[in-house]
């Protein structure tokens, strides 16, 4: 049951972009076309889930037992950087077309706050729908995967909106990023309607 709550909460109630403000930079950069938005979401989903798996284990079996939790930030970001590098190499071999389509955005996933944010949240934040507050590995993975689904959802919706906006007459001072951010604000307002769903 709690897995269901974790999933609903991560996708709708606490959407990573619209409620937690993580992953905004690539969100604004990639979402002007639906096709790149979908590709990017899948790459981010993969990286977030895998990164959470590895960082959770690193934290549990390396940082905590040796009491070097203060090295958490460095360790986590190194894991993420290494993972993204690996994903790049694998993707180049397995699907060169997707690799080309993502271009510069693939290495940029390293600096996507969503990835590091989820990794840190999973080992430090106390969650309300789990007794004791701290997640175990299974719950952490479900949370990470659901969070990235929420990221994808927000991105795809937004890409659709932006494709329409591009065809419209926008005042000069608003053109480009400002009108995009204001649209995200309205989207965030809509998503606020989900709050209170889990409780």
């Amino acid at each position, binding site marked *: 049951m709690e897995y269901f709550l974790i999933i609903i909460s991560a996708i709708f109630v606490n959407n990573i972009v619209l*409620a937690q*403000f993580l992953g905004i930079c690539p969100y604004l950069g990639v979402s002007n076309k639906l096709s790149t938005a979908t590709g990017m979401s899948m790459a981010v989903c993969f990286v977030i889930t895998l990164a959470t798996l590895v960082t959770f284990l690193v934290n549990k079996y390396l940082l905590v037992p040796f009491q070097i939790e203060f090295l958490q930030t460095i360790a986590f970001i190194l894991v993420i950087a290494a993972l993204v590098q690996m994903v790049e190499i694998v993707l180049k071999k397995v699907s060169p077309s997707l690799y080309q389509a993502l271009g510069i955005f693939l290495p940029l996933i390293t600096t996507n*706050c969503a990835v590091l944010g989820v990794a840190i*949240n999973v080992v430090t*934040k106390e969650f309300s729908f789990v007794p004791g507050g701290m997640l175990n590995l299974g719950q952490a993975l479900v949370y990470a995967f659901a969070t990235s689904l929420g990221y994808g959802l927000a991105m795809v919706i937004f890409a659709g909106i932006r494709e329409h906006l591009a065809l419209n007459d926008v005042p000069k001072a608003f053109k480009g990023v*400002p009108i995009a951010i204001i649209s995200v*604000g309205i989207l965030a307002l809509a998503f*606020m309607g989900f709050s209170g769903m889990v409780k």
Partner: protein
Amino acid sequence: MSKLRLIGDGLVKNNPTFVLLLGMCPTLATTTSAINGMSMGLATLFVLVLSNMAISALAPVVPDKVHIPVYIVVIATFVTLLQLLMQAFTPAMYETLGLFIPLIVVNCIVLGRAEAFANKHGVLESACDGLGVGLGFTCSLTVLGLVREILGSGSAFGWNFIGGGDGMLAFVMAPGAFLCLGYLMVLFNKLFKKN
């Protein structure tokens, strides 16, 4: 280039929030009040200046293919240093800013300035660049935080001018962040962009 020019550039010409469009995540998340925004800005400034200086000094001896991980480790070190110092001496603000302190590591501004400036210039100039961009960031965050605080809680820098601390709640929460930032960008464009 004069050192003072470097610092001044960070405020308008290279303003990270309104011109470079970097560091959006902490901008939106930590500006629930003017003080919070200002603290986040100053924390980022601390990391920016130090990492710019360190990377500027290290750049000549770092092999090209491995420079990104090395820069990231250096930045992460300063961020962790900041974490430890804040936990020890400003615990209340440490808890308020929460997750976004370690997230300074992936703040595109820090790595961005390292790549664009620090690894091509001297240590002192890089420090000035870090100071300028950091000040620009702090100003943007403080202004955004102030607007959201006035509209959302009826106070400014913690001083309540509407009794009971009531305001338009939406501005202290997620949508308000996006809306305020968007409109402030429009204002900035109208005031400072010549095209």
